């Protein structure tokens, strides 16, 4: 099984043999057995005295794996993703990507991980698709000479070329979702966190998403996919978990 609610540490020596250097983007610590994503003892409460939404949750993704986490509405899937993305902080526990802590080295962490939130938010309605991607490339601090090629690659990979000069508020929901997914994958992240990514996507959009996921897995990154119920995809999940009582259990 490729992802573990960890009762015991994974065999890290095996992992470090599998993780490539990827042009020096990965921190050196990956060779000492870190994971593309590891959550250790993550606990989150929404208010003092409230029950824990996540209760000492452990999760480690191995390189090259696609993991699904499900569970009923309100069980903490999105909270887990937000913590993994570095958007919010847990009361206890840590989140690491290749050994880089979300709190200890924020900039590095955000270079390695990319998050697609659920819903259709996070776009500037009055910007064109191309401007949106260029902006995201810039604040992702992609090297100057790579900005334009990255934007063109993203337009091509998600079949957005014909929409490049269209404003977001003039696009359909499915087209917006493709743009959001393009923004998620464009910086070439090591770890991709997807929260209900199939929202509004048509068959072609799903196929493009799967291609992008495969590329991440092929370079020994990892993808964590959250949705309430298991998805039917042309791509097998390497592991399936559900959140129950704030912890992961096998699905």
């Amino acid at each position, binding site marked *: 099984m490729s992802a573990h609610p960890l009762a015991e540490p994974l065999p890290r020596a095996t992992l470090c043999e599998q993780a490539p250097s990827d042009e020096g983007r990965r921190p050196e610590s990956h060779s000492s057995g870190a994971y593309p994503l590891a959550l250790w003892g993550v606990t989150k409460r929404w208010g003092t005295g409230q029950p824990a939404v996540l209760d000492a949750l452990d999760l480690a993704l191995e390189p090259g794996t696609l993991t699904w986490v499900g569970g009923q509405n309100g069980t903490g899937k999105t*909270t887990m993703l937000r913590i993994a993305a570095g*958007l919010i902080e847990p009361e206890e526990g840590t989140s690491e990507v290749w050994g880089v802590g979300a709190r200890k080295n924020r900039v590095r962490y955000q270079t390695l991980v990319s998050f697609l939130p659920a819903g259709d938010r996070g776009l500037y309605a009055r910007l064109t698709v191309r401007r949106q991607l260029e902006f995201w490339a810039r604040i992702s601090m992609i090297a100057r000479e790579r900005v334009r090629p990255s934007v063109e690659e993203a337009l091509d990979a998600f079949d957005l070329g014909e929409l490049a000069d269209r404003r977001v508020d003039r696009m359909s929901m499915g087209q917006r979702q493709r743009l959001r997914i393009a923004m998620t994958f464009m910086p070439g992240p090591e770890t991709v966190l997807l929260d209900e990514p199939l929202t509004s996507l048509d068959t072609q959009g799903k196929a493009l998403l799967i291609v992008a996921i495969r590329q991440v897995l092929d370079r020994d990154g990892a993808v964590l996919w959250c949705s309430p119920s298991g998805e039917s995809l042309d791509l097998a999940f390497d592991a399936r978990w559900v959140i129950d009582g704030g912890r992961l259990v096998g699905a």
Partner: protein
Amino acid sequence: MSNDSIAAAHAFVAVMRRDLSIYLSYRVRLVSQLLTSVFSVTLFYYISRLVHVSGFKSPSSYFGFVVVGISMVSVMYSCFSIPELLRQELVAGTFDRLLLSPFGAVRSVIAMTIFPLLYSFVLAAITLGLGCVLFGLQLHWSTVPLSVPALVLALLAFLPFGLLFAALTVLVKQGSIGTTWVIALLSIVGGLYFPVTLLPHWVRTVARLEPFTAATSVLRHLLVGSSIGESPSGALVKLALFAAILVPGSIMVLAGAIRLGQRRGTIIEY
């Protein structure tokens, strides 16, 4: 300069370009703001002809005084627009994107101030230009170039107020909370429409403690030759001190507010 610094500099420019693109996508907005300037200048031109204001030797000298004040109002509004812009980002979910980018939320919010401040700079220049073209406002051209660095210093002294209200927005999710009455208050104590010497003594004391009065006085002195009441260098030192102390202080407060929001999990709320 390291690659990261260069990438960060490009990100600052990207935020400014984004704001310019969004602004230009609302074409009526520019026309509306130009009309506001035209009517404001016209209104105060006729007020200056109608009412004799003590302390001014002629209607034209009051007109020059108040046109600079009107220009400063647009600068003030721009400073205090930052919280509302931030609130729009929170509602649209784009703030999450900024927060999750390597560029980060703090630098993004600082970058968000660039376009409104540059825009207010242009709007102030247009307002002065309208005063000259439509109503014969006499500028002191020999000192006008000096007003540019003075205005930059003033913007740096004002910026922390916008950042502090932005920090408040991160915490309480209301962009314009307090800004309307603060702008109205500062318009009074800053002497934008009338001299602060008309105000009660204790209000004049307050006026000496905030940067808006000093900035407006210096700019009036440089642009239309109004008597400043204090030495120009003293006013500039006051602005520099405000900027030197409050800019880093307000950035720290903003960073703290964002961190607190992340810890409490409220950063995603709007």
